[in-house]
């Protein structure tokens, strides 16, 4: 409706400005099509601009069985060459009803020239998003690898996984705190427990807590996320139960602080300094405050083990922690921590998929290099491909388009 008003002002202004009568030609090649990959109720109409030099705008009219005389959909400024008739229209298209559209050009003095009506189209919702099929295919490949390895893990097939140094260091760090008679500190990151990195972090927290419980060492876990807090509390409580020392568990050690990152940083800095934590674990997803936490830990002389999936914070953990789990290492460590054969074998699924990715990158880059040096074209020619230049261009187009 607003489009209408503005175009109307447009036309009015333009009409008063130029009194000369100019002939107006209609736009050409008007066509309508269902918008793909959507939930239905949308039709896209497009056209080539009118050859008239000066037009006031376009008018879009829709015809259907219910409105054989047509209903106005929109009036549009002259720069437009497409319009989507969807839920924002006065009466949105109904799925399953055939519509045809007429696009007409309006001259500055209100003259109207219509293009032939488009063919009839019906909008419909899609069951599959065509642009995401590559994603789905990749996921299915990964899931297949995952299940093959889970199956092999269940059958107890031995497999080699390289040791992750940080895991051993974690045990040593707890031992160090116990020797010094000072608490262990564990920050599970700023994300909710529903995010993968926090899930991995809590798996590691369980190991740290179990070891601490056996060594009579308290674990301080200040939380930023209100949902991670009760889960972390439960995990630590269970660890103390399993170690047979439920009486040593202090629920106040696993506390909720606040969900504002620099308030959290201030409070954590206070805890590190005042509780004199001997070993600090900073594992999970962090933001800019990561360096405040880690540098404060350095100043108290604590042994620090970092691990994060946050690419931007890794440089700070690398410079301030004694050991850092970089990205995927965090997830791998979490999978290996329980010595569960099924969990262990899933790590191998990462490797299989990574090998596939590396092969694709190598192949794609090699194809690009061959194409850019002209070798690809001569190769295709050698194999008797018709129109090698065209073939090479389409291969590279596919590669550069992200294999879609």
């Amino acid at each position, binding site marked *: 409706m607003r489009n209408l008003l503005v175009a109307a002002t447009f036309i009015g202004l333009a009409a008063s400005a130029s009194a000369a009568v100019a002939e107006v030609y209609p736009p050409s090649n008007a066509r309508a099509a269902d918008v793909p990959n959507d939930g239905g109720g949308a039709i896209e109409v497009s056209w080539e601009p009118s050859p008239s030099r000066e037009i006031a705008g376009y008018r879009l009219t829709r015809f259907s069985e219910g409105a054989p005389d047509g209903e106005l959909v929109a009036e549009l400024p002259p720069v437009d060459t497409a319009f989507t008739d969807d839920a924002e229209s006065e009466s949105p298209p109904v799925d399953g009803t055939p519509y045809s559209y007429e696009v007409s050009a309006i001259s500055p003095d209100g003259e109207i020239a219509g293009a032939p009506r488009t063919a009839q189209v019906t909008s419909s919702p899609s069951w599959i998003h065509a642009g995401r099929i590559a994603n789905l295919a990749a996921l299915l490949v990964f899931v297949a690898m995952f299940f093959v390895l889970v199956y092999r893990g269940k059958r107890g097939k031995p497999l080699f996984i390289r040791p992750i140094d940080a895991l051993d260091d974690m045990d040593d760090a707890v031992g160090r705190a116990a020797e010094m008679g000072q608490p262990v500190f564990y920050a599970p990151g700023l994300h909710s427990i529903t995010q993968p990195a926090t899930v991995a972090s809590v798996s590691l927290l369980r190991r740290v807590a179990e070891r601490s419980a056996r060594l009579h060492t308290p674990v301080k876990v200040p939380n930023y996320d209100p949902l991670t807090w009760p889960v972390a509390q439960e995990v630590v409580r269970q660890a103390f139960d399993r170690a047979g020392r439920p009486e040593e568990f202090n629920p106040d050690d696993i506390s909720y602080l606040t969900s504002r990152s620099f308030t959290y940083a201030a409070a954590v800095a206070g805890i590190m300094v005042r509780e004199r934590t001997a070993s600090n674990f900073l594992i999970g997803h962090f933001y800019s405050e990561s360096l405040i936490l880690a540098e404060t830990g350095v100043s108290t002389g604590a042994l620090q083990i970092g691990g994060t999936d946050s690419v931007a914070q890794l440089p700070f953990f690398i410079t301030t922690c004694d050991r850092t789990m970089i990205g995927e290492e965090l997830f791998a460590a979490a999978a290996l921590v329980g010595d569960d054969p099924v969990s262990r074998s899933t790590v191998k699924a990462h490797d299989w998929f990574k090998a596939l990715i590396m092969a*694709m990158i190598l192949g*794609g880059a090699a194809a690009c290099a061959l194409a850019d040096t002209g070798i690809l074209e001569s190769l295709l020619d050698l194999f008797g491909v018709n129109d090698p230049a065209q073939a090479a261009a389409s291969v590279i187009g596919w590669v550069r388009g992200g294999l879609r």
Partner: protein
Amino acid sequence: MSTDPYIWIAAILTLGVFSFLYRDNPFFCFVEHLLVGLSTGYMFCTYWHNVFLPELVNPLMAAPFGPEAHLWVVVGICFLWSCKYVRGVKDLSRLALAFWLSIDLGLAIPTEMEAGIIAQVAGTLGVSFSGTWDQILGNAILVGGTLAALTYFFFSKAHKGAVGATARVGTWILMIGFGASFSYTILSRIYLLIGRLLFLLRDWLGIVN
């Protein structure tokens, strides 16, 4: 010098935080505890006024069985979660937790695939090898570096021989990246400090214009 009492209070609190750089002290401890109280109070009120009332309580009060009646499920989930604190029915809270976990973890699977894998792979395999020599070299490093760094993340192969050598190059690529990003961050951090110093020197003391 400022006459606004708020500026004075803010300036004193600012100094309290800076005092932590020298060592922990009661003043910083006070500021820290004050901040925790104020910020959690702030969180309570904003969530109450901006989320809890308009998105749950008000729609249900206005029309308990209207179009937003599905929000009763939220009340149900809150109830289940609260069972955590009741002996005997504690297990019911796991249902609520399962709901939370399934949404975010389910969503994470396709979106990680898209942003973390497909976008990154597509950006790497279609690089251009035409242009100036530094662009060609750069793109070669981009492809080779990505492959080497990915090799570092191989867990089911011992890092020995050719794999070990490639993985080693991979760690170097990682280190170059970490070093460069670290340095680039310094600039923005210095400006944060400039901002606080300007507050102290200009807004509070007025010795800088």
